[in-house]
C-alpha cells in the first residue's frame, strides 16, 4: 500500500488519481502494491462505469476505484479493512456480477513494458521515416550539388540517431544469434542497417549522388511494425490467458487451534493443517476428511460425471469440488507434493517430449539468411575484381544488394497473417495462445475429444420429464433449490424452465451424501439417493423423490448435457476428412452411447490419464497430427503431448496452460471453423513468402549489376511490405459472415 505516498508527477490533475499512472513510476512495485482487482464480465457502457465507480467509492475505506472497460475489470485502492468479497457482493447487488482476480497474477500483463518499448521505437522510426522521405523526394526530383549535400546531411542527422535507437532490437538479437553461432533473420537486417548508414555517410562526405538513409530508416520502420504486431498478438493472448488464471484465487480457510478460521494462501498450507471447505469450493490440497459428510465432483480430475459421496476417513485430492456439505479436511499433501502438482510434472515431461516444431518463418529464415550474405559477398568480390579494386563502388553495390533483399516483407509475412487470423478467431471466441498454433492446426488430420466437460457441459440434464406429473416435478424442484448437488440443481432449473410454481417446502435440510429433506403439507418429503429413499435404483444416473404420500417414489433419470455446437464441431471436422476419436475416463457403456449420439465411430471409455497421453503419442508415432480437445486434469498430459491442443475456458488451469488454443465461449462450433481458417492462414503465409521472393527475383539482378538507386530500393521495400500486408488482411475480411 505504498501508492498513496508516492510523489505525483503527471501533467493532468485528473490523471493523478489514476493508480495506473503511478504504476509507470512504480514499475516493478506493481505486484507488491496490493489493491483489489475485480473482473466485471457484463460491464459495457458509460453509465456502467459511473455506477460501478460511484458504488465502490461509497464503500468506507476505498480510496479509489478505476474501471478499465477494455479489459472489463476494476482496480480498487483500499485500506486493509476492505475485502474483495464485500466489494464483489456490493456490485452484484447493483446487477454487475463481479469476481475477484489475483492481482499478483495480473501484474505481468498490466505493465507490458516490452510492448510499450517497441511502440516507442516504432513511433520514432515512423517520425524519422516521414522526415527523411520528405528530404529524399527532393533529392530524387533533382536537387543538385550543395542543396543535395545539405539534404543528405540533414537526413544523416535524423537517420543515424534513429537507427541507433530504433534498431536496437535487431542489433541485440543479431548479436545474440551470432554469439550462439547461428545466422538468424536479424543478422542480415543488422548488417544492412549498419552498412547502409556507413556507406551513406561516406558517400555524403564525398558529395556522392546516392545515400541510403531513407532506406535504413524505412527498413527499421517496417520491421518494427512486424515485430510489434507479433508481440501484440502474443501479449493479448497471454493477457487473456492470465486473466482466466487470475480468476482462481488460491486461498484456503485454515482452522486454528482454538477453532477459529483464517484465510491463508494455498501455498502456505502444510501437511497436518486442518482446512474448512465450504460447499461449492475447490479442495486446496490432498487430505483425509476429518469432519462432515458431502459429495465431491471429480469430473475435472477423472472425467466421471457423477459426484462421489465422502465421509470422515475418506481420502480426497486437490482440485475436486465440494458439493453438498461443509467438510473439514486434514491436509496430507499440499503444494508441490499434492496430486495436482504431480499431474503438472507429468505435463512438463510430456511437453519435453513434444517434437520441437520449426515454424514456417524459421524455415524461411534458415534458407534466406545464408543466401543473402552469399549474394552480397559475391557482388562485392565480383565488382572489386571488375573495377580493379574500387572499394567504393563494390561496397555501394554490396550495400544496395543487402538493402534490396531486406526481409521487410518476410518479417511482415507471418505476423500480419497470424494477427489477422487470431483477430478473426478471437471474435468467434477462440483465443490463440501460441504463435505457431495456427500453422500446426493446419496440419492436423486427427482430432481426439474428451467427453465430460468438453463435448458435454459436465452438467446433467433430466430426461423424460413430460411423463411425470407436474406436481411431483414442482416438489422435486423446490427440494432441489435447497442443494448444491448438480442433479438437484438441474431438476430445480428444469422445473423453473417449465414455468412451474415451486411450492414452499419447510424445514429444508441437506443430508450430506444422501439428499435433501423437508416438510411439505405436513408430510416428510425427500429427494435423493435410491437407497436413502427406499426406491429401486434405475440403471442410469437418476435421483428419486419420496412425496410422502405413501405412493412409490418417483425416479428422475438424467443424461449428460451436450455442449452447444458439439454436434456441428464433430460433423464439421469429419466433413473436412479428419479422423475423430473419443477418449474418456467415464464408463465404457456411457461413452459408447454418447459416441453413437454424436456419430463418432471410434470411442474408448475408462481411459486413465496416462493412457490418454499414450494413445495420443501412439497416434503421433503412427504419423498422425493430433488435435487434442480436453478440459480436465486427466487430459492435461494428452493436451501437452498432442501436436496442437484446445481447451474450453471452463477447464482446469493446468489444462488451459498446457493447451495452445482456449475456447472462450460455450459453443464448440468454432472449432471446425478454426481448423478451416488455419488452412487458409497457412496458404496466405506461403503466398506471402512467394510474393516477397518474387520481388527479390526482380530486384536482386538490378542491384547486382549496379543499377539500383535509393529510389528503387525504397519502392521495392514499401511495395512488397504493403502487398504482403494487404494479402494478409484479406484473411480478416474476406470470408466474414
Amino acid at each position, binding site marked *: 500500500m505504498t501508492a498513496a505516498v508516492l510523489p505525483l508527477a*503527471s*501533467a493532468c*490533475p*485528473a*490523471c493523478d*488519481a*489514476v493508480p*495506473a*499512472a503511478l*504504476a*509507470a513510476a512504480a514499475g516493478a512495485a506493481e505486484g507488491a502494491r496490493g489493491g483489489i482487482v475485480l473482473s466485471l464480465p457484463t460491464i459495457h*457502457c*458509460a*453509465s456502467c*462505469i*459511473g455506477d460501478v*465507480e*460511484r458504488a465502490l467509492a461509497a464503500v468506507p475505506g476505498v480510496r479509489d476505484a478505476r*474501471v*478499465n*472497460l*477494455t*479489459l472489463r475489470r476494476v482496480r480498487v485502492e483500499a485500506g486493509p479493512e476492505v475485502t474483495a468479497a464485500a466489494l464483489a457482493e456490493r456490485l452484484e447487488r447493483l446487477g454487475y456480477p463481479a469476481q475477484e482476480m489475483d492481482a499478483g497474477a495480473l501484474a505481468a500483463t498490466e505493465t507490458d513494458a516490452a510492448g*510499450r518499448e517497441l*511502440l*516507442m521505437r516504432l*513511433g*520514432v522510426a515512423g*517520425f524519422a521515416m*516521414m*522526415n527523411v522521405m*520528405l*528530404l529524399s523526394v527532393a533529392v530524387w526530383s533533382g536537387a543538385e550539388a550543395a*542543396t543535395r549535400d*545539405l539534404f543528405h546531411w*540533414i537526413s544523416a542527422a*535524423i537517420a543515424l540517431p534513429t537507427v541507433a535507437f530504433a534498431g536496437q532490437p535487431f542489433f541485440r538479437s543479431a548479436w545474440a544469434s551470432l554469439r550462439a553461432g547461428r545466422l538468424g533473420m536479424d543478422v542480415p537486417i543488422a548488417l544492412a542497417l549498419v552498412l547502409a548508414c556507413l556507406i551513406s555517410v561516406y558517400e555524403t562526405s564525398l558529395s556522392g549522388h546516392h545515400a541510403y538513409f531513407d532506406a535504413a530508416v524505412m527498413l527499421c520502420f517496417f520491421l518494427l511494425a512486424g515485430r510489434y504486431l507479433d508481440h501484440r498478438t502474443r501479449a493479448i493472448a497471454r493477457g487473456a490467458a492470465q486473466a482466466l488464471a487470475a480468476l482462481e484465487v488460491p486461498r484456503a480457510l485454515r482452522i486454528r487451534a482454538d477453532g477459529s478460521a483464517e484465510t491463508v494462501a494455498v501455498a502456505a498450507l502444510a501437511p497436518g493443517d486442518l482446512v474448512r471447505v465450504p460447499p461449492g469450493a475447490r479442495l486446496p490440497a490432498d487430505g483425509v476428511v476429518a469432519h462432515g459428510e458431502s459429495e465431491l465432483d471429480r469430473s475435472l480430475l477423472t472425467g466421471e460425471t457423477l459426484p462421489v459421496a465422502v465421509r470422515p476417513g475418506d481420502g480426497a485430492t486437490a482440485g475436486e469440488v465440494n458439493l453438498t456439505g461443509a467438510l473439514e479436511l486434514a491436509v496430507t499433501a499440499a503444494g508441490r507434493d499434492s496430486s495436482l502438482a504431480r499431474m503438472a510434472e507429468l505435463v512438463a515431461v510430456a511437453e519435453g517430449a513434444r517434437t520441437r516444431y520449426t515454424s514456417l518463418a524459421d524455415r524461411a529464415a534458415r534458407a534466406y539468411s545464408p543466401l543473402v550474405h552469399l549474394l552480397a559477398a559475391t557482388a562485392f568480390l565480383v565488382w572489386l575484381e571488375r573495377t580493379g579494386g574500387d572499394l567504393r563502388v563494390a561496397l555501394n553495390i554490396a550495400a544496395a544488394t543487402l538493402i534490396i533483399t531486406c526481409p521487410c516483407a518476410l518479417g511482415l509475412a507471418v505476423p500480419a497473417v497470424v494477427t489477422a487470423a487470431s483477430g478473426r478467431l478471437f471474435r468467434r471466441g477462440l483465443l490463440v495462445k501460441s504463435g505457431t498454433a495456427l500453422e500446426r492446426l493446419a496440419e492436423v488430420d486427427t482430432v481426439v475429444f474428451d467427453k465430460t466437460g468438453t463435448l458435454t457441459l459436465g452438467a446433467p440434464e433430466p430426461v423424460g420429464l413430460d411423463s411425470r406429473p407436474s406436481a411431483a416435478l414442482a416438489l422435486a424442484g423446490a427440494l432441489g433449490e435447497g442443494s448444491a448437488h448438480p442433479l438437484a440443481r438441474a431438476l430445480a432449473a428444469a422445473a423453473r424452465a417449465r414455468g412451474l410454481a415451486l411450492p414452499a417446502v419447510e424445514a429444508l435440510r441437506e443430508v450430506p451424501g444422501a439428499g435433501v429433506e423437508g416438510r411439505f403439507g405436513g408430510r416428510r418429503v425427500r429427494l435423493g439417493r435410491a437407497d436413502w429413499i427406499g426406491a429401486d435404483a434405475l440403471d442410469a444416473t437418476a435421483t428419486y423423490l419420496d412425496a410422502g404420500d405413501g405412493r412409490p417414489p418417483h425416479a428422475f433419470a438424467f443424461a449428460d448435457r451436450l455442449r452447444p455446437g458439439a454436434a456441428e464441431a464433430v460433423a464439421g471436422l469429419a466433413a473436412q476428412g479428419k479422423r475423430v476419436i473419443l477418449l474418456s475416463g467415464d464408463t465404457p457403456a456411457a461413452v459408447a452411447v454418447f459416441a453413437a449420439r454424436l456419430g463418432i465411430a471410434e470411442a474408448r471409455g475408462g481411459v486413465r490419464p496416462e493412457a490418454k497421453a499414450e494413445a495420443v503419442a501412439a497416434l503421433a508415432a503412427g504419423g498422425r497430427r493430433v488435435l487434442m480437445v480436453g478440459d480436465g486434469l486427466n487430459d492435461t498430459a494428452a493436451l501437452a503431448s498432442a501436436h496442437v491442443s484446445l481447451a474450453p475456458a471452463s477447464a482446469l488451469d493446468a489444462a488451459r496452460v498446457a493447451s495452445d488454443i482456449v475456447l472462450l465461449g460455450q459453443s464448440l462450433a468454432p472449432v471446425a471453423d478454426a481448423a478451416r481458417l488455419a488452412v487458409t492462414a497457412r496458404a496466405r503465409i506461403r503466398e506471402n513468402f512467394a510474393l516477397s521472393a518474387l520481388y527479390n527475383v526482380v530486384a536482386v539482378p538490378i542491384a547486382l549489376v549496379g543499377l539500383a538507386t535509393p529510389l528503387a530500393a525504397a519502392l521495392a521495400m514499401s511495395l512488397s511490405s504493403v502487398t504482403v500486408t494487404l494479402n494478409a488482411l484479406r484473411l480478416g475480411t474476406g470470408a466474414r459472415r
Partner: protein
Amino acid sequence: MSVLAWLIPISLMLGLVGLGAFVWALRNRQYEDPEGDSRRILSTDWDDRPKP
C-alpha cells in the same frame, strides 16, 4: 532557395512536436483503456471540477 533555411527547421520542429506528443501519450498510459476512455467523455462526472 533561402526559404529552405526556414522551412526545413520548421518542418522538423513540427514533426518533433508530434513525436513528443506521442511519447507523452505513451508514457501517460493513454492507450491503456481506449474503449473506456471513449465512453467516459460522455459522462458528466467531474465536469465542473477535476476529480480530487
